[in-house]
């Protein structure tokens, strides 16, 4: 045995302290890495909070939440988050209408219908979809989808929410489908066998047994997908435009919270000015929304966890 594992039989024992020291150094190195990323996160939140505080010393939270205009550059500036929030939600809702059904159907197909070979081809393709830089999606929307929309509805703005919704929807299909598929595949085969044994068809087994059994995972994938849609930046900045207006018409241009942050950061907004600070207030709002959605999805997963037997 000793010879096989490379230690000569007659070798003296290694001193334990040397090994302990090595283990300790590695432990500390790993800890520092973990600590560093935590500190960076805390630092970002810290900056967000301090700059937002500076902002809210000048603009009351009530104004921020109830003013219906967002015009930081005007002579008489208004800082109502509503147009930006509405822009974000308009696009997120549109994207959800596309991505949730398509993502779920893709997941059902991959988990219940596709054979191993087909799944082996389709899954990498979906991952490629997830790996395309979001700028590319933005230009795809602007140069391909928008012209198509304008054929159908000529009054469509060049920059419009619908086009952005469609590409963001396509972008988040992989998020929804891969998480939903994991949930579907976690449903035990015995449940499927039980349903088949009662004379159910494949469609009935999939939709009436497997999907309900995986519901918490599916809902969590929906919430994460929507959260990604709200946080999505480049594609919406390019496709939806930068006109902060409170509208529910998807053919018009809107500005999302993320798009505002991009456009304001690109222009030179001097430090310490109110428009500079407004960036952080919007960022903070965005952070709170996506953070809460992530918590919600964790909660759904934990609360409705399927305890299969």
């Amino acid at each position, binding site marked *: 045995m000793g010879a096989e594992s490379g230690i000569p039989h007659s070798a003296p024992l290694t001193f334990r302290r040397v090994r302990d020291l090595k283990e300790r150094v590695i432990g500390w190195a790993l800890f520092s890495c973990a600590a560093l990323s935590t500190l960076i996160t805390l630092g970002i939140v810290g900056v967000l909070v301090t700059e937002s505080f500076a902002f809210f010393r000048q603009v009351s939270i009530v104004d921020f939440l109830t003013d219906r205009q967002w015009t930081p550059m005007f002579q008489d500036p208004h800082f109502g988050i509503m147009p930006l929030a509405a822009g974000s939600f308009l696009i997120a809702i549109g994207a959800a209408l596309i991505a949730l059904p398509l993502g779920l159907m893709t997941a059902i197909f991959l988990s219940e219908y596709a054979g191993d070979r087909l799944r082996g081809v389709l899954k990498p393709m979906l991952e490629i979809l997830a790996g395309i830089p979001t700028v590319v999606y933005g230009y795809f929307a602007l140069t391909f989808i928008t012209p198509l929309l304008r054929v159908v509805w000529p009054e469509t703005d060049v920059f419009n929410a619908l086009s952005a919704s469609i590409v963001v929807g396509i972008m988040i299909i992989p998020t929804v489908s891969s998480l939903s598929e994991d949930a579907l595949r976690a449903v035990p085969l015995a*449940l499927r066998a039980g349903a088949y*044994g009662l*004379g*159910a068809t494949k469609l009935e087994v999939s939709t009436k047994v497997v999907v309900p059994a995986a519901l918490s995972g599916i809902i969590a994938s929906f919430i994460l997908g929507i959260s990604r849609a709200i946080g999505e930046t480049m594609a919406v900045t390019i496709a939806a435009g930068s006109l902060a207006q409170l509208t529910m018409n998807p053919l018009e241009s809107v500005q999302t919270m993320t798009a505002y942050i991009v456009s304001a950061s690109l222009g030179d907004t001097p430090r310490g000015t109110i428009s500079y600070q407004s960036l952080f207030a919007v960022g903070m709002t965005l952070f709170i929304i996506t953070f809460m959605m992530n918590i919600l999805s964790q909660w759904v997963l934990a609360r409705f966890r399927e305890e299969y037997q």
Partner: protein
Amino acid sequence: MATTHDIDTDGQDPALEARAVSVFYGDKQAVKEIDLVIPANKVVALIGPSGCGKSTLLRCFNRMNDLVAGARVEGEINFHGTNLYQDDVDPVEVRRRIGMVFQKPNPFPKSIYNNLAFGPKVNGFKGDLDGLVEESLKQAALWDEVHDRLSDSAYALSGGQQQRLCIARTLAVKPEIVLMDEPASALDPIATQRIEELIFELKKQYTIVIVTHNMQQAARISDYTAFLYMGELVEYGPTDLLFTNPSEERTEAYVTGRFG
């Protein structure tokens, strides 16, 4: 060659008739040219050591092997004069008419009521569903324990209750034949006894084919017993005969506990 003793079908047509049934998993043959007549309204036990092909053979009777990747079935199984493996036979209908209860209780993560209602609903049942649920639970001797909590999750039931729920769920589809694959192997002795009593009741209305590796159980509940060994049918006949006076050496060795 297998010894098959006289199978008394009481002048009725047999419920199922397997002819030269073989099952392959890839290249491996798990069931070897088995002929087996299942008489109607009787309990037939399939016994034999683990891995001898009992479950595989059982799954042939309602085409569950269709769902097992790599499984291939040869031969015929006649059911009311039709070969179940004929091209134009719909396996979904086969499974509705020939139900199955599995080794481990596998209730759906739904309410007790919805576990029962699932089968009838997917089969287009249009009658009194509440009545059917009650009737099926009564047949499975579970009604008294659950009638006041039908909307509770099936997972709240004990293992033995879950298995009776699965039996009730199968009965709710009104099959002619019920296949059971070691239905009590995951249960404690008391729950096992209840299942056995239940099988005794059910054979008045149904034909039952039950896999068991428990010989006492086979002796207690079955009318006929088939002994399988390494994919082959060794001996098939009335249970009493098989346990007291088997013709085959291997059967005797197995039922007296000398191997397996």
